[in-house]
């Protein structure tokens, strides 16, 4: 089976590379590759050289902090991995290691091959992706003194061992979590044991942390590192965190000798994790927990995360404007297709990131200031980044283009209708966040006059829809003019795809500037005139209203112009890109 896995791996890799090289004959992929290459040169290669030069003068951290990170980095990062390991039991999710492709299901699961060998096959299949995932950051995140190729290769190996271990652990968690309520006592024992151990380990490390942070607040960042580091390298926490810090030790090794000494132990942790996963799977199999539940195929995974029928209370009327029919359709997608369970990772990351940023920015102004900043950051993110990621519009519907093209609807109405729901949704979210921010600002920024606060809030609320609708118009223009460039399912892969996304991103930014310029100029003139006449802070409101009106007219004109272009979309170009990607 190992030779068969290697054969599949080698052939798939070879053919994938061949397909991606062959498609460079098409201009859109060639241009994408050139842009991606240029970007990577300026974003990675040149900064690396700069870091290497700067290394002669000093590191990224001051020497005391760097020494502390060298000493406690592995144990602190180990504590973070332990926390992640615990969270993995709490939140839903299926390990990709257990997700067989449809071809694997049809060819391998029907073949006379044991389940253990199938799992080993999946582990081998995942290595290419993990290697790539390890190499990129190893070359991307360089610090002075570690810019040589050999240092980066060593770092990539250490990262690869870490990634493989983490992925295996999550596969084990996925399997065990499904058997927590098993009827078989052996399966239950095998499922509960790692969970109990993980929770106990988190509790032990948590107690050590609490004891290390006495009532006196830390005086500096190095002080925080020193106290936390001491908490993780002494007493019970040291024992509990041993496997975690051993796994990460090569990443923090200070020189080749320390690295070579750390690698065998990290490999030992990897082997132990592999043995645990295989042994657990064996126990579950012997207990009669058959493959009806595991492993899941990708097709089954899709069905698990597929939308569910939820009563939305919104029934489509049988007559009315075309735009509203598309708005309703896309609303159903959001309401039924949004799986809150799968969003916990990004949400937790966003929450911690924004909260940390807000607390850091408002350290002297208290919790309310922090919350006010969180609300404003959320409003900004919904307005400026939302249209890039909320794709329940024509971009998402490109895969349904064959159906849409048979409908007797005006192209302009279709384009407007497709963008209506996501734009309205983001606008309302941003309005809500702005309102929260405005209310909290009463406490957070008391020095701001009430009139100015009200004027700024009203003006911002007027600018939000202008920004959101303008971006959606540009995205739809890109989808209509270059449908083959739009990744409808976010699964576009390859060097050239990176370049295509960069071009699109640049185009959207440029388009936004062009669309906003007339409105911004008019708003500036109106604001100046009103300010000269009244001297009131409320000049922001008419200025923003003028800007909104001009952008609204531009959106209407642009969608009317896009209508005939939509009618001319060549479906064969879209289909070719999807089949080859």
């Amino acid at each position, binding site marked *: 089976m190992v030779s068969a896995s290697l054969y599949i791996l080698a052939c798939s890799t070879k053919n994938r590379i061949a397909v991606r090289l062959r498609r460079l*004959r*098409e201009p859109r992929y060639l241009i994408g590759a050139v842009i991606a290459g240029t970007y990577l040169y300026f974003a990675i290669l040149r900064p690396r050289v700069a870091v290497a030069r700067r290394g002669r003068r000093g590191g990224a951290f001051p020497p005391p902090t760097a020494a502390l990170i060298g000493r406690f980095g592995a144990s602190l990062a180990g504590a973070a991995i332990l926390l992640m390991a615990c969270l993995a039991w709490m939140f839903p999710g299926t390990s990709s290691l257990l997700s067989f492709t449809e071809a694997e299901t049809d060819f391998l699961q029907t073949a006379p091959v044991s389940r253990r060998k199938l799992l080993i096959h999946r582990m081998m299949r995942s290595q290419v992706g993990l290697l790539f995932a390890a190499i990129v950051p190893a070359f991307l995140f360089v610090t002075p003194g570690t810019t040589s190729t050999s240092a980066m290769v060593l770092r990539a190996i250490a990262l690869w061992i870490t990634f493989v271990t983490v992925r295996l652990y999550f596969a084990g968690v996925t399997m065990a979590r499904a058997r927590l309520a098993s009827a078989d006592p052996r399966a239950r024992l095998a499922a509960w044991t790692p969970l109990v151990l993980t929770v106990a380990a988190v509790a032990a490390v948590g107690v050590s942390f609490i004891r290390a942070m006495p009532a006196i607040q830390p005086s500096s960042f190095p002080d925080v590192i020193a106290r936390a580091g001491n908490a993780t390298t002494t007493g019970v926490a040291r024992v509990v965190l041993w496997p975690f810090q051993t796994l990460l030790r090569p990443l923090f090794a200070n020189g080749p000798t320390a690295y070579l000494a750390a690698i065998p132990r990290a490999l030992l942790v990897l082997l132990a994790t592999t043995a645990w996963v295989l042994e657990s799977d064996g126990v579950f199999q012997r207990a009669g927990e058959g493959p009806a539940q595991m492993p899941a195929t990708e097709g089954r995974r*899709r*069905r698990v995360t*597929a*939308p*569910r*029928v939820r009563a939305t209370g919104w*029934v*489509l*009327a*049988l*007559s*009315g404007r*075309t735009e509203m*029919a598309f708005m*309703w*359709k896309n609303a*159903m*997608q959001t309401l*039924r*297709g949004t799986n809150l369970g799968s969003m916990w990772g990004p949400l937790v990351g966003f929450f911690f990131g924004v909260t940390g940023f807000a607390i850091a920015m408002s350290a002297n102004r208290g919790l309310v200031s922090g919350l006010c900043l969180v609300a404003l950051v959320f409003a900004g993110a919904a307005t400026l980044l939302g249209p890039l990621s909320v794709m329940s519009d024509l971009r998402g519907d490109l895969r*349904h*283009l*064959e*159906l849409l*093209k*048979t*409908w*007797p*609807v*005006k192209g302009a109405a279709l384009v407007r209708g497709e963008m209506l729901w996501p734009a309205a949704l983001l606008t309302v979210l941003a309005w809500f966040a702005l309102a929260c921010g405005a209310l909290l600002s009463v406490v957070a920024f008391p020095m701001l006059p009430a009139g100015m606060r009200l004027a700024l809030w009203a003006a911002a609320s007027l600018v939000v829809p202008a920004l959101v609708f303008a971006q959606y118009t540009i995205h739809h223009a890109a989808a209509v003019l270059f449908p083959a460039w739009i990744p409808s399912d976010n699964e576009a892969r390859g060097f050239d795809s990176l370049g295509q996304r960069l071009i699109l991103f640049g185009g959207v930014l440029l388009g936004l500037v062009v669309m906003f310029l007339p409105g911004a100029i008019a708003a500036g003139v109106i604001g100046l005139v009103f300010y000269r006449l009244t001297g009131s802070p409320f000049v922001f409101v008419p200025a923003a209203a003028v800007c909104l009106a001009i952008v609204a007219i531009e959106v209407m004109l642009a969608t009317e112009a896009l209508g005939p272009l939509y*009618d*001319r979309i*060549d*479906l*064969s*170009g879209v289909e070719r890109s999807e089949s080859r990607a």
Partner: protein
Amino acid sequence: MGLAVEHLTRTYAGPASPFTAVDDLSFDAGGGEIIGLIGPNGAGKTTTLRTLAGILRPTSGRVAIDGHNIVDDSIAAKRRLAFMPDEPHLFEYLTVEEHLRLVARLYAVEDFDRRARALIEELELTGKERSLPGELSRGMRQKVVIACGLVRDATTLLFDEPLTGLDPVGIHRMRETIVARGRAGACVLVSSHLLHMVEEICTRVIIMDHGRKVADGTVAELASRSELAAAGSNLEQIFLRVTGRGTATDS
């Protein structure tokens, strides 16, 4: 009235060289006609249907539905047209009933509730009205697509492999449905590899090969053609002779 195809050509651009999938195809079809479009794999049947449906633009030539050009007057043409593809394309987040409702809204269908109920019963979708496509079998999804095509009064119906994925009862019902629509005055074009079904329900047959029309007429007319007379009288024998696939076997 009906379907008019004049010198239709559709070429796909390729990295190496362009490929002509449909080459100078012409035919007319009136109301009440059920035309079987048959041909070997790669003959250009699906490209023809997709071009007639307005999904692909003709490279040259003209397609008109009830006199409305599918390119210049596309909305009026599409309003009279129903295309049922072989691969059911459905929105994964809309239920069966909501798909029908959306189509009814877009095509301004009157008396929707009665029509939808009748169709759901006719296509054996009763009890699945509130199901999402992901909860349906392929055959069921195919029936939803067909229901969406039949819920409005289309004068021209295009079926691409309509029996794929259907169970024997579904196949029987679908045959009856197609015949009933033809008898009701619709112009029906059916692409299929099931020659016995085509022979049974179609009033006329068009055989395509390499993008070109190689035969057109009723089965009896084709069988009586001097160069085909030796092939036999059933459609399968005629098809094999016309496309040159049956020569070796026959000999």
